[in-house]
């Protein structure tokens, strides 16, 4: 097998949508309208994901993340461009492609709602034709990584959101796929559950050398899991490199935190190339009394925010 898990070359995806008019009169007009417009969800994206990598695939809402993943999983056909997953065109070989991928999509459970988890696992084992030995090994691996006993015999519909997400991730890895797509796996979870899930993903990635493509809005996920990130905005790739590199790029930025006498914190993002931090402190001092000052390196969160706002273009 080649070293590339995913190869995308100049991939575009367009959707045709009806131009809707406003108001009641507009609604009636729309009944007969043939006024379509083309919306480009993904524009000319080229990227490569290597085996064993954990990639953070980031972008603001509606940037085209989901569309890209739907193309990689073979659900959508690219309008143009070349897309290979595990060396195959996913849309043309959907079932074959599905053998080698695992997907956790949104907060939608893909397990059988009213079945205990273990029964879902058994059905999946049969669907993917996993040999008994590999299956047992995988369950053992799961046991060593997380405490699965409390959820194994529980129907999915009775689980908490955290347990359900955990189950879905375990189910996605069950057939030992080459690539796993995780779409916002930690959304809505509490802090300890988030940590647990990150640990699990890291553990599975290490043990099985599984490629993980992760979309998230939680920079905690990115910091904990990804070395490399790809950022997409309005369908165009705007960043693709190490996370460290990104921080260097914004290396001259500092987060200045000022505590006032009434114990409220104020935050300022300062580019040291253009502004002197001390000047800002002095100026703020003039406004109102300062009790405490902290100068921090820029956080991933701030960097991403900066990029979404157009800092890297």
């Amino acid at each position, binding site marked *: 097998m080649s070293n590339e898990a995913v190869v995308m070359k100049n991939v575009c995806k367009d959707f045709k949508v009806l131009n809707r008019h406003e*108001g*009641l009169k507009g*609604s*009636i007009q*729309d*009944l007969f309208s043939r006024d379509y417009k083309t919306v480009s969800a993904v524009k000319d994206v080229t990227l490569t994901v290597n085996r064993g990598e954990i990639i953070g695939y980031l972008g603001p809402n509606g940037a085209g993340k989901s569309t890209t993943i739907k193309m990689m999983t073979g659900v959508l056909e690219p309008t143009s461009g070349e897309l290979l997953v595990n060396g195959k065109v996913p849309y043309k070989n959907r079932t074959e492609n599905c053998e080698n991928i695992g997907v956790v999509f949104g907060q939608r459970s893909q397990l059988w709602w009213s079945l205990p988890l273990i029964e879902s696992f058994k059905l999946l084992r049969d669907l993917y034709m996993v040999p008994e030995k590999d299956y047992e090994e995988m369950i053992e691996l799961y046991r060593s990584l997380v405490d699965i006993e409390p959820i194994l015999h529980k129907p999915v519909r009775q689980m908490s959101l955290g347990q359900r997400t955990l189950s879905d991730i375990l189910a996605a890895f069950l057939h030992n796929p080459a690539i796993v797509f995780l779409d916002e796996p930690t959304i809505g979870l509490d802090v300890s559950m988030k940590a647990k899930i990150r640990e699990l993903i890291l553990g599975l990635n290490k043990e099985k050398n599984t490629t993980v493509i992760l979309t998230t809005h939680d920079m905690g996920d990115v910091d904990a899991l990804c070395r490399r990130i790809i950022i997409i905005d309005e369908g165009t790739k705007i960043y693709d490199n190490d996370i460290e590199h990104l921080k260097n790029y914004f290396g001259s930025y500092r987060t200045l935190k000022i505590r006032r006498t009434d114990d409220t914190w104020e935050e300022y993002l300062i580019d040291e190339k253009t502004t002197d931090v001390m000047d800002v402190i002095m100026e703020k001092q003039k406004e109102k009394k300062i009790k405490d000052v902290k100068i921090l390196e820029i956080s991933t969160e701030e960097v991403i925010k900066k990029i979404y706002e157009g800092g890297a273009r």
Partner: protein
Amino acid sequence: MNPKRLLAITRAGIMESLQFRLGIFVTLFANLIYLVLVYYLWKAIYDSSGTDVVNGMTFTDTMIYLILATALFNFLEMFVVWDMSRKIQSGALVLDLLKPMRFRKYTFWSYTGNHVVQFVLTFIPTFIVVMIVTGGAIPLGLNIVWFIIATVFALIINYNIEMLVAPICLFTESTWGINIVKETIVLLLSGATIPLAFFPEKARMVVQYLPFRAVYDIPLSILLGKSGSDTWQGLLQLFALQIVWMVVLTLAGNLFWNCAVRKVTVNGG
């Protein structure tokens, strides 16, 4: 209740229904096919019977009755039971209960928008088709006014029947079962599948006083000038029956709904 607000909800309901543009055309088309089926079936039935009038209904009467019953059915159709069960499962019901308006009222007025669209897009075209095909067999006069009033009553009665049934979803997950029982009973006993005139005498005596008849049979009888609606006394009797049921069902629906909601708030939805 502020009438402007009601109008706004109705308007939003209309716009929502119009969103499904292809759906509307398909519905129209499917209805036409259905009418053709009804036509052929009853033509065959009357042809085999050898007489023109059965139980006071001619072929034309029966046709008009059944076709308009279907159109009325589309016009009155509500999915309150389904909506309710989906809302319960997704937890959205709690959100609806928080809206600054009584839930029952809100549902009613947002459906009104849909009713308006259905009336214009299915009932009126069907009515015109029937008029053309039968060569104007439907008398056009004051009966149209009475028919419209009776239809509004029917709408309210139908809504209250729905609202009586829908809260059952709070107690059981069997939406399909509940809905099918309701639909079957309403369609059979209201005369939507087979005109009440064809029912055996004894059965008709009973069915006549049930609320289901007030949904389809009474408006259609009034439109066609049947069931004594051509006299003032008969007309008043029919209206009285509708009004009595409207009041009874509204009260019962209110009571049941309040009990059911108390259950939701106790269990936290």
